């Protein structure tokens, strides 16, 4: 059965490479992408059902490195089985959806290949039992995120967002690399079990664990690395779904879960994690409420939700373990994927992702409407959807942590969790109201939402921002039944439509079906996903009291928003002062801070170039100049005058005599 474990990683990786190499033809690319995703799902299911509980599935053989053991093993247990399955499932849904979503994009083949590679990276992190392999998967995800976010590289905003996403996570990866190196040095091995069981080196351990936390903070978008994630919405919606649902941002949770044994014993590292997570979840949830763009709203909600997972790991007592965190990871994977796919569908309908443009369009398809409803409800934590269970398990774990004597970090987390529950419910309600309330005037789409328009204007004025709303009108604009060519569609690369008319028609019917199926499947999983968690110890543990409190909070927040929006007649966020809202849309200057940092680095780089030219390189040039000058001076003194030569001779004799006689022993 070990081949299943390996194949789970290898199949999507091969699919990714094959997609790159063979992806000239769209049907082949589709086949490879969806087929590989399906195969992976089946394999992951098999592994989950019958986990090997072994930690030494060999891959390519250990690296011969003398004093460092690098076995490069994979691991198959219940945790990796479940998470792999969920990841594979979500990826399958996204791949299926993508076939529809990018039906006219001539870059579909590389995109699908990128998604496959991305999945391979995530699955490698999940299956890995070796820190090096973890890092490999980790970095591959980062790279694929760059490719996917920058998919529409014609647009400056997409290019910038991709660059920003990769750079920010890469900066955090500095700490990740150092952390992993530190952990492996302790054990003289990169093997996960060896690292976990190594008892010595406490000081180094804390350092390493904190470094890993920082690395995780980068990929998971914890403060202060949070700002790349909303910008990453520049990518096509399936890419956003992929990054936000089950893979990249959640990978940090998984890595920390794998190292939980070490974290459980290390209060300092967990405190750092707790503080970062607590700040992030509240901050992001707050920002989400004010967003004018559906995808950005979802992005901020992702930040907040991922922080919840990590908070679970930070606060849960050792006895509870990783269950709450992983449970929320899985639940979030389902509903967030659902929300993004739904958002993409909506955007395809209205040609924009701005909430103002979408007003009421959630009603245009019943599946879409209910899908969004389920997704938002799950996000808010409404029972009995999966979000309710997982989130309340986290709250419960945090409360248990307080009881367990965790002190400060558990308190911080618990307080932040309740605040987040309140805020989450608020922004979910606001979004739902915006999507589901038909606009008052039948002609204008945007008239009724003056407030949000103002905000968009504010946002548009900020030239530094890449996320100019006007630039974001690039989702498939027409309704799905009559797909026209996109404006930037390159005729050379286009499918030969005319020659294959029947196939074209068949496609026209088939493609929306794929979309519908994937959204429906995810909706179902969002409803029933809690069942999956039954197999994972500790991932479902809802306390009565905390559940009651959170439900009351949700209801209260929802009601308040409903009231504030005058029963849906206007945007609830209009109650927020405009300046605050504009700041929220702009991420409160985080982007400017990043840019300032970047400019500082560039300034240093310019200094380096100047130094390189004028200082480091000055010596060779000075040497050359001196040589030439000396030569010139020499030529002047050598004018073939015999007496000068004589003086030279006599002076030389004196010199030699002095040197010779004095140095003689």
């Amino acid at each position, binding site marked *: 059965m070990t081949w299943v474990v390996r194949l789970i990683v290898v199949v999507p990786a091969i699919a990714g490479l094959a997609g790159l190499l063979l992806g000239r033809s769209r049907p082949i690319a589709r086949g490879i992408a969806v087929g590989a995703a399906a195969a992976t799902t089946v394999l992951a299911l098999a592994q989950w059902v019958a986990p090997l509980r072994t930690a030494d599935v060999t891959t390519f053989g250990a690296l011969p490195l003398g004093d460092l053991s690098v076995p490069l093993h994979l691991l198959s247990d219940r945790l990796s089985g479940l998470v792999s399955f969920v990841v594979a499932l979500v990826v399958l849904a996204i791949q299926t959806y993508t076939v529809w979503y990018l039906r006219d994009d001539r870059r579909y083949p590389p995109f699908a290949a990128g998604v496959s590679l991305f999945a391979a990276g995530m699955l490698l992190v999940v299956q890995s039992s070796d820190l090096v392999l973890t890092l490999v998967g980790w970095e591959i995800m980062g790279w694929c995120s760059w490719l996917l976010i920058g998919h529409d590289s014609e647009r400056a905003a997409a290019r910038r967002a991709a660059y920003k996403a990769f750079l920010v996570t890469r900066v955090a990866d500095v700490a990740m690399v150092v952390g992993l190196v530190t952990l492996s040095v302790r054990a003289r091995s990169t093997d996960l079990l060896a690292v976990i069981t190594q008892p010595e080196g406490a000081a180094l351990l804390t350092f390493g664990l904190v470094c890993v936390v920082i690395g995780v903070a980068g990929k998971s978008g914890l403060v202060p690395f949070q700002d790349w994630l909303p910008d990453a919405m520049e990518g096509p919606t399936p890419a956003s779904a992929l990054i936000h649902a089950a893979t990249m941002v959640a990978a940090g949770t998984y890595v920390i879960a794998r190292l939980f044994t070490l974290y459980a014993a290390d209060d300092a590292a967990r405190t750092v994690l707790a503080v970062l997570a607590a700040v992030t979840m509240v901050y992001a949830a707050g920002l989400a409420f004010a967003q004018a763009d559906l995808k950005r709203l979802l992005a901020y909600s992702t930040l907040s939700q991922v922080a919840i997972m990590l908070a679970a790991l930070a606060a849960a007592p050792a006895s509870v373990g990783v269950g709450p965190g992983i449970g929320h990871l899985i639940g979030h994977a389902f509903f967030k994927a659902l929300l993004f796919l739904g958002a993409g569908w909506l955007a395809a309908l209205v040609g924009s992702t701005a909430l103002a443009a979408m007003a009421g369009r959630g009603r245009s398809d019943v599946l879409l409407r209910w899908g969004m409803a389920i997704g938002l409800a799950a996000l808010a934590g409404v029972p009995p959807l999966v979000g309710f269970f997982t989130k309340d398990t986290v709250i419960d774990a945090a409360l248990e942590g307080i009881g367990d004597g965790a002190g400060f970090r558990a308190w911080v987390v618990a307080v932040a969790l309740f605040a987040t529950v309140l805020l989450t419910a608020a922004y979910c309600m606001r979004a739902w109201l915006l999507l589901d309330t038909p606009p008052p005037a039948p002609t204008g789409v945007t008239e009724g939402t003056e407030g949000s328009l103002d905000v968009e204007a504010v946002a548009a004025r900020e030239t530094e921002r890449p996320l100019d709303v006007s630039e974001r009108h690039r989702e498939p604009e027409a309704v799905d039944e009559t797909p026209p060519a996109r404006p930037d569609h390159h005729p050379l690369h286009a499918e030969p439509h005319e020659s294959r008319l029947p196939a074209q028609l068949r496609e026209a019917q088939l493609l929306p079906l794929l979309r519908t199926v994937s959204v429906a499947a995810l909706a179902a999983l969002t409803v029933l996903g809690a069942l999956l968690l039954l197999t994972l110890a500790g991932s479902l543990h809802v306390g009565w009291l905390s559940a009651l409190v959170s439900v009351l909070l949700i209801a209260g927040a929802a009601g308040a928003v409903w009231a504030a929006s005058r029963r849906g007649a206007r945007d609830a966020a209009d109650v927020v002062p405009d300046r605050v809202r504009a700041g929220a849309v702009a991420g409160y200057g985080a982007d400017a801070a990043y840019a300032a940092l970047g400019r500082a680095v560039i300034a240093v780089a310019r200094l380096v170039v100047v130094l390189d030219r004028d200082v480091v390189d000055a010596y060779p040039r000075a040497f050359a100049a001196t040589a030439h000058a000396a030569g010139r001076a020499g030529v002047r003194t050598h004018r073939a005058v*015999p007496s000068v030569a004589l003086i030279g001779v*006599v002076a030389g004799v004196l010199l030699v005599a002095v040197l010779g006689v004095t140095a003689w022993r």
Partner: protein
Amino acid sequence: MIHLQWPVMLAAVLAGLGIYGVLARRNAVLVLIGVELILNAANLLLVTAGTRQDSLFAAGSVITLFVITVAAGEISIALAVILVMFRRFGHIDLTAVPDLTPDAPEPEPTTGVQGEVVER
């Protein structure tokens, strides 16, 4: 064996005078004389050293003769060159920067023909 110091000191004085002459004189012939003084110092030293007991072959004296002979040959060549120089340049000043401009046109590969004519 009488004191060797005196002849040696005389030789030193001679050599010093010779070097002074070489350095101070602009005229080539006078420089030649300076060189002769140094050579005489060498000769004096050789003869002095040769006077010591058991110095066989009379090496000191013999080598002195050698040096005198070589010096003679040297001077002859030197005077020949100086003579030609005087005819060509009109002076024998050693501190002058030599005039290296090409001579009167002559067939490139057979330069020097006229030189010998002049020397005769």
